[in-house]
C-alpha cells in the first residue's frame, strides 16, 4: 500500500500540471469575478439571483470539467510513454515495483486523484466567486449571490459525474493506456488512427457500421445513460423568464446508468485493455 502512496506522489512531482492548470483557471475566474461587469438586472429579484447562481456554478463546473477531460486525455497518453521516451523506465524498473502497481497508480491518478483536484478547485473557485459577487452585488443591489442548497446539489453532481464517467469511459481510458505503453512515438496519432482504420475497413470491406456506432455511442452516449433525458431544463432559460434551476435529484439517473448493459460491457472491455497495457508495460523496456 505504501508503494502506491509513493507512486501517486511521484505522479504529482512529475506532472505539476495536475494542480497548476486548475489553479490557473481558478485564479482567472476569481479575477473575472473581481473585475468583471456585474449587471444590476441579473440580481433584481431573489428568483433571478438564484438563477444566476445556478448558471454560474454550472458554468464553472463545466469549464473545470472540460479542462480536466482534455488534460486526462493527454495524461493517459503520456503516462506510460514519457519514461520510455527519456529511457528513465530503466530506472523505475530497477526498483521493486511491479508493472501492475505502476499502471494501476497511473489509472488511480487519472480516475480519482485528478478529478478530486479539479473538483476541489471548482468548489474553491465557485465559493470565492460567489463571495466576491455577493459583496459586490450587495453594495449595489442588495441581493446576495449565495445559494448553499444549489452548491450542495452541485457537490452531488460532481461526485456522480466522477464515478459514472470513470466507469463509462473505462474502454477509452484502457485504450489510451495501451497506446501509451506501446507506441514508440506519436502517441496522439496512434490514439485515433487505429479506431479510424477499423471503422473505414469495416465500411469498405463489410459495408456495415458496427464499430462506428459502438465508438460513437461510447463517446457521446454518456449523457443519455447517466442523466434523465426528459429533463430538458437547459433550454428553458431566457432573459425574460428566469432560468429554472433544476434539482439535481431529478436529472441524475444512477439506476438507469447502472442497469444499462452498455455500462458493464464497456467496463469489461476497459478492464481487458488495462490488463493488456500492464502486459505491454512488462514486456517493453524501451
Amino acid at each position, binding site marked *: 500500500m505504501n508503494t502506491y502512496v*509513493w507512486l501517486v*506522489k511521484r505522479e504529482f512531482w512529475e506532472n505539476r500540471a495536475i494542480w497548476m492548470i486548475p489553479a490557473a483557471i481558478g485564479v482567472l475566474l476569481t479575477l473575472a469575478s473581481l473585475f468583471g461587469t456585474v449587471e444590476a438586472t441579473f440580481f433584481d429579484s431573489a428568483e433571478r439571483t438564484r438563477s444566476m447562481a445556478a448558471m454560474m456554478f454550472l458554468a464553472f463546473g463545466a469549464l473545470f470539467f472540460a479542462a480536466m477531460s482534455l488534460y486526462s486525455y493527454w495524461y493517459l497518453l503520456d503516462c506510460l510513454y514519457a519514461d520510455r521516451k*527519456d529511457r*528513465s523506465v530503466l530506472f523505475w524498473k530497477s526498483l521493486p515495483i511491479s508493472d501492475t502497481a505502476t499502471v494501476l497508480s497511473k489509472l488511480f491518478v487519472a480516475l480519482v486523484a485528478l478529478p478530486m483536484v479539479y473538483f476541489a478547485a471548482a468548489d474553491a473557485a465557485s465559493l470565492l466567486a460567489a463571495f466576491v459577487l455577493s459583496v459586490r452585488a450587495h453594495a449595489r443591489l442588495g441581493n446576495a449571490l449565495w445559494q448553499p442548497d444549489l452548491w450542495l446539489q452541485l457537490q452531488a453532481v460532481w461526485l456522480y459525474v466522477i464515478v459514472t464517467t470513470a466507469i463509462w469511459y473505462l474502454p477509452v481510458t484502457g485504450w489510451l493506456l495501451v497506446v501509451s505503453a506501446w507506441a514508440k512515438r506519436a502517441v496522439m496519432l496512434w490514439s485515433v488512427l487505429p479506431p479510424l482504420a477499423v471503422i473505414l475497413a469495416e465500411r469498405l470491406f463489410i459495408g456495415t457500421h458496427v464499430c462506428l456506432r459502438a465508438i460513437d455511442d461510447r463517446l457521446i452516449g454518456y449523457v443519455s445513460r447517466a442523466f434523465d433525458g426528459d429533463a430538458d431544463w437547459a433550454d428553458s432559460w431566457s432573459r425574460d423568464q428566469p432560468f429554472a434551476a433544476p434539482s439535481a435529484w431529478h436529472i441524475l439517473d444512477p439506476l438507469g446508468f447502472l442497469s444499462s448493459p452498455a455500462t458493464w460491457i464497456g467496463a469489461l472491455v476497459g478492464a481487458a485493455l488495462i490488463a493488456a497495457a500492464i502486459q505491454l508495460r512488462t514486456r517493453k523496456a524501451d
Partner: protein
Amino acid sequence: MSPLIQARDLGKKFGSRVALDHVNFAVQPGRIVGLIGPNGAGKTTALRAVLGLTSYEGTLEVLGREPFRERAALMSEASFIADVAVLPPWISVEHAIEFVGGVHPRFRADRARSLLAKADITGRRRLRELSKGMKTMVHLALTMAIDARLLVLDEPTLGLDILARREFYDALVNDYMDDTRTILITTHQVEEIENLLTDVLFIDRGRIVLDCSMEDIASRYAAIAVTEDQLAAARAEQPFHERPLLGKRVLYFERPDLQRLGAFGEVSTPSVADLFVAKLSRGAPA
C-alpha cells in the same frame, strides 16, 4: 555455494535475428564478472534477461527467482544501472532519495546523502540541471545505498570523460564492493575495469566464447613476442591469433606448453583487452 545467476540454454530471438543462442553460464557470489563483447553481441539482451526486463527461452534463475515473472521481488535484492543518464530529468535529487527510500526495503537514505555530499551534489537540484558525470554519480549513490546482493551495470560510464569514469569506479570499489556482493558489468572500456574483475565472460554473436576467472587466464593463455627468424617455428605450435608489435609478432596460445614456447621469445599473460581481440578476431590469423 550455489550460483547467484544460473542460465541454462538461455535463448532470445528478435524476429529472425538470434540475440542469444542458447547459452549457459553461471555467476558465483562474491565475484565481479565482466560480460564483454562487441556491439550487437547479445550483452544487453543477456543482462535484460537477468534483470527480468525481457522474456526469454530456456531457464534462468537469479537469486533463486525467475526474473521475468518476478522482477519486482528480484529488484528488492538486486539493483542495476542500465546505461548513463536514465534518471528522470524532472526529479530532484532529494525527491529521488525520498522515493527510493519509500519503495525500497533495503535502501539507506542517509548513506545516499553522505555519498552525494562527498560528490558535492546538493539535494534541491533537478536531474536535468546536472552534468552527465553528476547524473551518473547520483545514480551510483542511489544504487550503492541499496544493500543489494547483486548489482548489474550496463555500460555505466558510456560517454563520460576520463575523470568521471575514474571517480565512478573508485567509488564502486572503495565504498561498495565487499565479499557479500556480486557485480555483473558490461563496458567497452575493458582496460578500465580489468583490475576490478575476478571473472570474464566473452560473448560474440549470441554465444559465450570464453568463460574464465582472471587467475585462469594466466594459466590458460599466453602471449609470446616472437622475432621474425623464430616466426615459422612458433607458428607451427598453432597460435589462435597473432598481431604485429614493434617489429615483432605477438602470438597467442591456448593451454600453452611454456617449456617449449618459452624458447621462441618473451612470454606474458595477455590482458583482457588483448585476449578479447584475439578471441574475437574474425578469420584466420594474418
